[in-house]
């Protein structure tokens, strides 16, 4: 059981097209800091504590909404919060639960959030806990831990777009957790909506009775009234007993600069209140509870939290690293059997991160520490590059995760950074039986070690799911083959749409696979994938040499079959971006020490300004100082100056 959940949990996808979207600037942004500042005031005002002990499990529903990106998850959440009076109906509520600027800009949810609502149905008042989940599969690790706090989920499908790859992935994720899955069709009022067809797809693919599917439009509010009744009717209440000793699952945590570590917990048995002493099963560390409450949607203290309920707890935890997501907590001296936990998030993409200005190292170090406080899925190791100096090797859940992290560093911490080409976690199997992971190309064994000690080199694979109109089948098959894919099967999910399953090396999808998929299908193909083990693969280390010196930060690991084309391409593109200097610059690319390509940037012959008289002096000096600034941003390797674009050439391929 645990195994299935884990393999499903660790899924990653690349939505590189997001990176190209222009960055909107929002005049007003709700940050978690603002949120907790008001909370800090409320802590003192104890009178406002709400009593929710009147809600036993059968009057509670813990549910989430899962959907493909842009299928309207956050909008539905807004409507439900309005409907239950949690937020006012100003018409201005846009993605209330998406608190990070990056979330609103990109229309994705990165961090799980939760909100409690009170709702009256058939004469009874219910406590409805909506546990919002990230909408992107890079973050499916977060999805699965959020699902562990729910008993049911709404599978939201855009009636115009129908089932997409992520819908399929999310369904199986929830199904694997044993949740009640209630499908609903959104955007049914769009002119392009085909609710009947989408319903048929759901019926055909998931074997769910199409007649039961709720139709609605979260944007206009059409049919939204029926959502919560359907949740109450179709999803089971949480299990557990108030008479059992306290037992709770920690499913999310974040660091707040005013109150410290905040833990979101699902109470499985018993109850908890301020002043109680609780113990972590994982560390056996004891904590005194300083406050409990629900997210409404801002943190609101309650007199207690009890069985079936979901809420936050603060307990003087110093660091987020003490709060292990998946940990079970119990009352001091009343140990309980631990709930099945989670395996920590596994990094799928590693990249080197370096300050553009070496003097910024200390400040960037602090920024990365702060950012990872609330994103424990990023792994951090210090790294030193001969070319780029001191930096970090960061591990991410996927390339979107990497891109989001970069954007947050730049926008929330005003950092200017250089990111090296991402590497997937290759494995090296040695003859002595040991195995080593390759986090950075620098870890790749040299040619002698390869010959003498290495048994095999292993490459991680993924199982990709793609859904697209059948007219693109030919191009999609070609694309998969081109990227060393092995087609597993393809099935028609309705008369015009195909679901294709293909096994691909993970390295292929972290480069430009997704971009090509989108362009070749004119944006109609959706894509998702899950981890699919390792396979022996003929890997080489591609090095870039400038005047015979290898530049570590430009190295990469790749399959031998792609190395010749990639090596030539890289050398050619480096020639385009490296500026002429006072000497010839020889660019070479080498696969496992064997030269693949050679290009020369000829020495600069003449650049002196021809005319410089009285009126030209000011302009000349301005230009000089601008050039000096530009030079400062260059990375110097030996005597060769590398512009930042050089590092991008390794990350992308030309057409």
């Amino acid at each position, binding site marked *: 059981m645990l195994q299935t959940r884990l393999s499903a949990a660790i899924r990653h996808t690349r939505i590189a097209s997001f990176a190209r979207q222009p960055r909107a600037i929002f005049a007003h942004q709700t940050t978690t800091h603002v949120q907790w500042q008001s909370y800090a005031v409320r802590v003192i005002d104890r009178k406002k504590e709400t009593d929710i002990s009147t809600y036993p499990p059968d009057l509670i529903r813990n549910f989430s909404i899962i959907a493909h990106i842009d299928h309207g998850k956050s909008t539905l959440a807004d409507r439900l919060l309005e409907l239950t009076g949690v937020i006012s109906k100003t018409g201005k509520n846009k993605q209330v639960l998406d608190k990070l600027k990056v979330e609103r800009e990109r229309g994705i949810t990165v961090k799980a959030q939760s909100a409690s609502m009170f709702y009256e149905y058939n004469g009874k008042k219910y406590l409805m806990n909506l546990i919002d989940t990230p909408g992107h599969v890079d973050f499916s690790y977060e999805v699965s831990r959020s699902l562990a706090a729910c008993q049911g989920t709404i599978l939201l499908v855009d009636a115009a777009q129908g089932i997409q790859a992520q819908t399929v992935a999310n369904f199986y994720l929830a199904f694997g957790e044993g949740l009640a899955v209630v499908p609903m069709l959104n955007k049914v009022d769009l002119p392009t909506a085909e609710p009947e067809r989408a319903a048929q797809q759901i019926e055909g693919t998931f074997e769910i009775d199409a007649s039961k599917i709720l139709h609605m439009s979260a944007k206009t509010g059409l049919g939204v009234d029926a959502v919560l009744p359907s949740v109450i009717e179709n999803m089971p209440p949480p299990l557990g007993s108030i008479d059992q000793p306290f037992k709770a699952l920690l499913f999310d945590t974040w660091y707040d600069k005013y109150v410290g570590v905040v833990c979101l917990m699902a109470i499985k048995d018993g109850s908890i209140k301020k002043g109680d002493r609780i113990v972590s099963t994982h560390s056996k560390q004891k904590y005194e509870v300083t406050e409990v409450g629900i997210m409404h949607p801002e943190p609101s203290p309650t007199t207690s939290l009890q069985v079936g309920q979901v809420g936050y707890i603060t307990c003087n935890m110093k660091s987020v690293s003490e709060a292990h997501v998946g940990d079970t907590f119990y009352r001091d001296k009343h140990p309980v059997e631990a709930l099945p936990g989670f395996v920590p998030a596994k990094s799928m993409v590693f990249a080197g991160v370096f300050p553009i200005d070496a003097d910024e190292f200390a400040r960037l170090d602090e920024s990365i520490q702060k950012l990872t406080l609330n994103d424990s899925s990023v792994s951090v190791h210090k790294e030193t590059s001969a070319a780029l100096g001191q930096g970090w090797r960061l591990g991410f859940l996927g390339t979107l995760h990497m891109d989001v992290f970069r954007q947050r560093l730049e926008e929330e911490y005003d950092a200017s950074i250089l990111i090296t080409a991402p590497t997937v976690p290759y494995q090296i199997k040695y003859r002595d039986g040991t195995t080593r992971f390759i986090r950075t190309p620098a870890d790749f064994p040299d040619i002698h070690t390869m010959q003498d000690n290495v048994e095999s080199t292993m490459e991680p694979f993924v199982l990709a799911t793609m859904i697209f109109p059948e007219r693109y089948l030919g191009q999609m098959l070609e694309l998969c083959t081109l990227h060393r894919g092995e087609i597993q099967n393809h099935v028609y999910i309705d008369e015009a749409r195909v679901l294709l399953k293909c096994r691909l090396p993970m390295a292929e999808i972290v480069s430009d696979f997704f971009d090509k998929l989108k362009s070749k299908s004119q944006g109609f193909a959706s894509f998702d994938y899950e981890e699919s083990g390792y396979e022996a693969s003929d890997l080489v280390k591609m090095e870039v040499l400038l005047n015979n010196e290898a530049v570590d930060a430009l190295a990469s690991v790749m399959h031998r079959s792609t190395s010749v084309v990639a090596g030539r391409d890289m050398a050619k593109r480096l020639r385009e971006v490296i500026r002429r200097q*006072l000497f010839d610059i020889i660019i070479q690319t080498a696969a496992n020490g064997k030269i693949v390509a050679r290009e020369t940037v000829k020495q600069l012959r*003449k*650049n002196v300004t*021809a005319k*410089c*008289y*009285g*009126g030209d002096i000011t302009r000349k000096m301005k230009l000089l100082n601008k*050039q000096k600034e530009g030079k400062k941003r260059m990375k110097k390797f030996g005597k060769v100056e590398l512009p930042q674009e050089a590092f991008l050439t390794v990350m992308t391929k030309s057409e």
Partner: protein
Amino acid sequence: MVPFSLYVHWPYCTFLCRFCAFSKARVPAKGVEHERITSALLKELRTSLAPHKDKVLQSIYFGGGTPSLAQPRNIAQIIEAANSLVPLASDAEITLESNPTSAEVGKMRDFKQAGVTRYSIGIQTLDDRTLARMGRLHTGAEGLAAVDRARALFPGKVSFDMIFGFEGQTLDQWQKELETVLKHADNHISVYQLTVEPGTPLFRDRNAQRVVLPSGDLSAQMYESAVEMCTAKGFRHYEVSNYAVPGSESMHNMGYWQGRQWVGIGPSAHSRFIDPSSNQRISSARLPDIQRWAQHCEKFGHGTAKSTVISDEDAKQEAVVFGLRMLDGITDRRFAGVSGGQSLKDYLHMDRVQQYVDDGYLLWNSADAKLAPTERGLEVIDSILIDIVP
């Protein structure tokens, strides 16, 4: 006494060259208002030169525009007015720029009479098609004839401008052209690479790919052959684009590279001087629009648009940047004038200077504390400067 220079900008032209980025205007249909422009120039001259009475005028330069379109008697008025405020040195150099069109050539003697001592002619190229394409209304033959005539009137004091790097020009054509003009040369030649300046018609043509200019490598070869050929004829390559028989260097232009103070009058003219009242180093520029500039002169006595104080740090940078445009380079003695006594050695990144010396780009004479570029260094001096100047 502190040497000083005067620049006079005459803004009108009978034709506008497609590469020219200087402030200029076509001669209006009703003709140039000679008296109005002259009186505005004289007003601005008096306002600007008055504070510098204790100095000595080393040079006057009439540039433009096309100052040879001015009336010689107006030129005389300006020279006299300048001399009455700041005395002209006995060996003062008074240059006038001229186009080789016949009307202007005819006025040469009158300009000499007016006090002009040095004549600079814009030949630019001998290729008539290129001249026409660039919008110039004269031929190559007229250019050479103008030089010959000027040499008769201003022996040893004639210069001309040549430009290389026009569209379609080959190295061979350029060398032949240069060979021809060198036969007519007096003691001074300016040789420029065609520079595409923003805002010019040529800039737009190139960006729209209507014009394709020679590659960087070909331009470099043209530059190098100019150095070679002029040097072989006994000219010294004393600045990036200037060659002279020793002793015939342009005193006025050397002033710019050596950090001499000057005042510029006329539309868009720049000035750089130490304000005697505040003792601050000032950089200023006049209004570029002829009418507005003239109105301001009439109303306020000058048409200054902008005036800024140059910091000591900027002044030091300028001294090195402009000093190293000359093969004679810069010495501690001259640098001390702006550095308040700081030596070049203490100011520059000497480790990098040493590297460039070792690589053959710079020469450092520690006895005289003199830094100078080699020929090879001069060609790439813009790259070197950003490395050695703090």
